[in-house]
C-alpha cells in the first residue's frame, strides 16, 4: 500500500472508521465495566484495544493518503506548467515562421533565426525541417535571380555595344562627307536615337549592379558632363546649362555621373510641359561641386516626394526585380550610382513649382580645370587627331609657322614674304603682341610633350627652319594668359615618333625671310585648291596663281 496510492474507497472510509471506533469504545466501555463487574475486565480491555487500534490504523491511512494526494497534485501542476510552456514556445516558433521567416523569404532578405524548442524534440525537428526548406527555396530563388541578372546584363551590354556601333557609323558617315549638311542632319538624328538606346540599356545594366559599359580616359568639365547627359535624352534642346565653376570630374566617374544626370534630366523633361526649359545650374561648393536641375512641372505630393527622395538618394535600394509593370528606372539608377560612388542626391520642391534635383559630387572626385573664360588655344591646338588628312598637315605646319614668328615680333610688320613658307602667318598685329607672354612657354614643357610631334613633322616639310618649340606662344595667348600650373588637355596620340626637339635651347632669332609669307586670302585660295583637287566637290576652284600680297583689299566681310 505504501508504493501505490490507496484505493479511493478506503481513503474516504478511513476517517469515518476511525471516528466510529473511538465512539464505539466510548459507548461500549462503561457497559462492559458495569456488566461484568471488576472481576472480569479483560473483554473490556480487548474491545478498547481493538477500537484504538482501528482508529490509529484509520488515521494512518488517512494521513498517508492525503500526503500521496498532495504529491500527485504537485506532479500534475508541474506537468501542466511544462505543457503550457511547450505550447507557448511552439506557438512562438510558429509565429516566427509565419511572421518573420516567410516575409523575409518573400523579400529575399536574410531571415532571423528561429527560436529553440527545448524538450520537444519532435516539434523542433519539424520546425528545423520547415526552416531548412525555406532556406533552400530562397537559395534557389537567389541563384535564379542572379542568373537572370547576368543574362540581362549580357543582353543590355550587347544592345549598348550595338548602339555605340551605330553612333560610330553615323560619325564615319559625316567624316566621309565632311561638308554635307544633310548628311550631318541625318547623322545627328541617328546618333541621338542610338544614344537614347544606349542609355536605356545602360540603365538595365546599372540596376543589375553592373559597372556602366562606357569609360572615358580624361576628366570632363562639369558643363560638358551636363551636355553629355543632355545628349542622351529625347528633349535635349530643352536643357539650359548655366555656370561654369571650373571643375572637372575625374575620368573614372565621368560615365556614371553623365548617366546619373541624364536620368535626372530625362525625368525633369518628362514631368514638365514640353514648352518649358529644364534649368541646370552648376556651382562649386566647399565639399565639391553641385549640379542643380530644376523643372517647371507640377512636382509631386509629399508622400511621392518622400519616396522619390529615398530612392534617388540611394537610401532605398530598388533592384531590377522590383521595377514592376511600368518600369520607372530613372530614380532607381540614380540611387544605384549614388550608393556606389558617394554622390549625394536629393530631390526637393523647386521654386519654379516642379522638382529640384541636387547632385553633390564630393571634392575628391573632382579636379580643377581652366574655367571656360580662360581657355588657351595653345593647350589644345596641335592635338588635332587627324593625321592622315591634308588638313592636319596644314594645321601642323601652321602651328609651326605661328611659333616661328613669335621670337621676332618687331620685324614682322616689315617682313617680306618668304618663298619657302607655304602657309601665311597670322596677321601682323596679332604677332606683334606675342612678346609679353613668352615666358609662359617655359613652364609648360612637361604637359606638352605629346603635342610637339606634329610640329616637328611640319619642320620636315619646311627645310631651313630651325627646330623650335611648339605653339605655346600663340598670338592668342596674350589675351588669355594661362597660369603654368593649370591642367591642360593632353593629346592621346603618341604614335608618331619623329624625334622631338624639347632639349633645344631658345630659338635663335630668325632672319627676316621668316616673316609672314602670304596673306590670309592667299591661304584661302590654297585651301580652296586643296579641297577642289582632293574631292572635286567644290567645282569653283579658285585660280591658284598668287595674287599680290596686297590682295587683302578684295576681301569682304559678310
Amino acid at each position, binding site marked *: 500500500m505504501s508504493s501505490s496510492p490507496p484505493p479511493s474507497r478506503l481513503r474516504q472510509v478511513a476517517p469515518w472508521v476511525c471516528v466510529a471506533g473511538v465512539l464505539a469504545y466510548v459507548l461500549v466501555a462503561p457497559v462492559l465495566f458495569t456488566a461484568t463487574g471488576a472481576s472480569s475486565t479483560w473483554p473490556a480491555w480487548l474491545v478498547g484495544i481493538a477500537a484504538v487500534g482501528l482508529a490509529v490504523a484509520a488515521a494512518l491511512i488517512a494521513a498517508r493518503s492525503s500526503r500521496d494526494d498532495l504529491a500527485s497534485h504537485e506532479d500534475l501542476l508541474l506537468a501542466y506548467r511544462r505543457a503550457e510552456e511547450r505550447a507557448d514556445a511552439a506557438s512562438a516558433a510558429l509565429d516566427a515562421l509565419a511572421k518573420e521567416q516567410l516575409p523575409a523569404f518573400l523579400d529575399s532578405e536574410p531571415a532571423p533565426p528561429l527560436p529553440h524548442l527545448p524538450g520537444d524534440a519532435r516539434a523542433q525537428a519539424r520546425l528545423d525541417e520547415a526552416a531548412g526548406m525555406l532556406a533552400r527555396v530562397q537559395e534557389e530563388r537567389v541563384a535564379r535571380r542572379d542568373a537572370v541578372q547576368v543574362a540581362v546584363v549580357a543582353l543590355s551590354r550587347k544592345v549598348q555595344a550595338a548602339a555605340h556601333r551605330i*553612333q*560610330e557609323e553615323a560619325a*564615319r558617315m*559625316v*567624316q566621309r*562627307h*565632311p*561638308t*554635307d*549638311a*544633310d*548628311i*550631318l*542632319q541625318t547623322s*545627328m538624328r541617328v546618333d541621338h536615337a542610338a544614344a537614347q538606346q544606349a542609355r536605356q540599356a545602360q540603365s538595365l545594366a546599372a540596376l543589375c549592379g553592373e559597372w556602366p559599359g562606357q569609360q*572615358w580616359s580624361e576628366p570632363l*568639365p562639369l558643363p*560638358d*558632363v551636363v*551636355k*553629355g547627359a*543632355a*545628349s542622351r535624352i529625347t528633349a*535635349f*534642346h530643352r536643357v539650359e*546649362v548655366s555656370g561654369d565653376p571650373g571643375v572637372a570630374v575625374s575620368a573614372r566617374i*565621368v560615365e556614371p555621373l*553623365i548617366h546619373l544626370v541624364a536620368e535626372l534630366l530625362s525625368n525633369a523633361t518628362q514631368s514638365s510641359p514640353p514648352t518649358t526649359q529644364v534649368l541646370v545650374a552648376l556651382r562649386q561648393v566647399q565639399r565639391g561641386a553641385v549640379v542643380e536641375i530644376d523643372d517647371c512641372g507640377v512636382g509631386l505630393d509629399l508622400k511621392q516626394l518622400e519616396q522619390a527622395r529615398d530612392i534617388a538618394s540611394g537610401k532605398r535600394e530598388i533592384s531590377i526585380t522590383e521595377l514592376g509593370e511600368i518600369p520607372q528606372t530613372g530614380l532607381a539608377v540614380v540611387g544605384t550610382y549614388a550608393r556606389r560612388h558617394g554622390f549625394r542626391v536629393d530631390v526637393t520642391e523647386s521654386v519654379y513649382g516642379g522638382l529640384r534635383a541636387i547632385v553633390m559630387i564630393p571634392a575628391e572626385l573632382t579636379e580643377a580645370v581652366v574655367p*571656360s573664360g580662360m*581657355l588657351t*588655344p595653345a593647350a*589644345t*591646338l596641335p592635338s*588635332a587627331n*587627324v593625321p*592622315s588628312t591634308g588638313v*592636319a598637315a*596644314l594645321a601642323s605646319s601652321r602651328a609651326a609657322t605661328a611659333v616661328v614668328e613669335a621670337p621676332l615680333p618687331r620685324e614682322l610688320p616689315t617682313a617680306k614674304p618668304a618663298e619657302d613658307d607655304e602657309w*601665311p*602667318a597670322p*596677321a601682323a598685329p596679332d604677332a606683334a603682341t606675342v612678346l609679353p607672354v613668352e615666358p609662359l612657354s617655359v613652364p609648360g614643357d612637361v604637359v606638352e610633350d605629346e603635342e610637339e610631334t606634329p610640329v616637328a613633322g611640319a619642320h620636315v616639310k619646311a627645310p631651313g627652319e630651325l627646330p623650335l618649340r611648339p605653339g605655346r606662344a600663340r*598670338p*592668342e595667348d596674350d*589675351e588669355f594668359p594661362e597660369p603654368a600650373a593649370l591642367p591642360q588637355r593632353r593629346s592621346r596620340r603618341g604614335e608618331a615618333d619623329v624625334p622631338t626637339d624639347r632639349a633645344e635651347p631658345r630659338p635663335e632669332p630668325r632672319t627676316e625671310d621668316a616673316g609672314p609669307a602670304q596673306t*590670309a586670302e592667299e591661304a*584661302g*585660295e*590654297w*585651301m*580652296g585648291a*586643296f579641297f577642289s583637287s582632293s574631292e572635286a566637290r*567644290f567645282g*569653283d576652284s579658285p585660280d591658284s596663281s598668287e*595674287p599680290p600680297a596686297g*590682295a587683302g583689299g*578684295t*576681301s*569682304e*566681310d*559678310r
Partner: protein
Amino acid sequence: MDSEEYRDHPVRSYVLTSGRAHPSRNTLRPETLVRAVESRPVLSTAGRLERELVQLCHGTLALAEVAAYLQLPVSLVAVMVSDLVDAGNLTIRSNHQAHVLPGKDILEKILDGLRKL
C-alpha cells in the same frame, strides 16, 4: 578619310548646335576664312567649345582648319561658326567671289586679245 580613327566623345554633335545641321548662312565653305572680332566679347552663355573656337580664330583660320583643330566635322563647325558670325564674334574673310568673277578690265583684255587673233 575613312582611315580616320574614330574617337567617341560624351558630348554629341547635336547638342553643340541644338540639333541644327544647316548653317544659318550658306556662304561658308571649308576654305572660307574666319577671324575673331577682337572688340566683341564672347557671350557669357557661350560654351567652352565656342570660346575655344573664337580664340582659335584670333589668327585668321580657314573653316577646315578650325574643324581639324577642334576635331569636329567641317559641316558641324560651319553651323557653329555661322552662329558666331551671327552673334558678331567672328567675321568671314573671303575673296571667293573676286576670283569667280574676273574683273571687267581682264575680260576686256581677253576680248581684245581674241579680236587680234
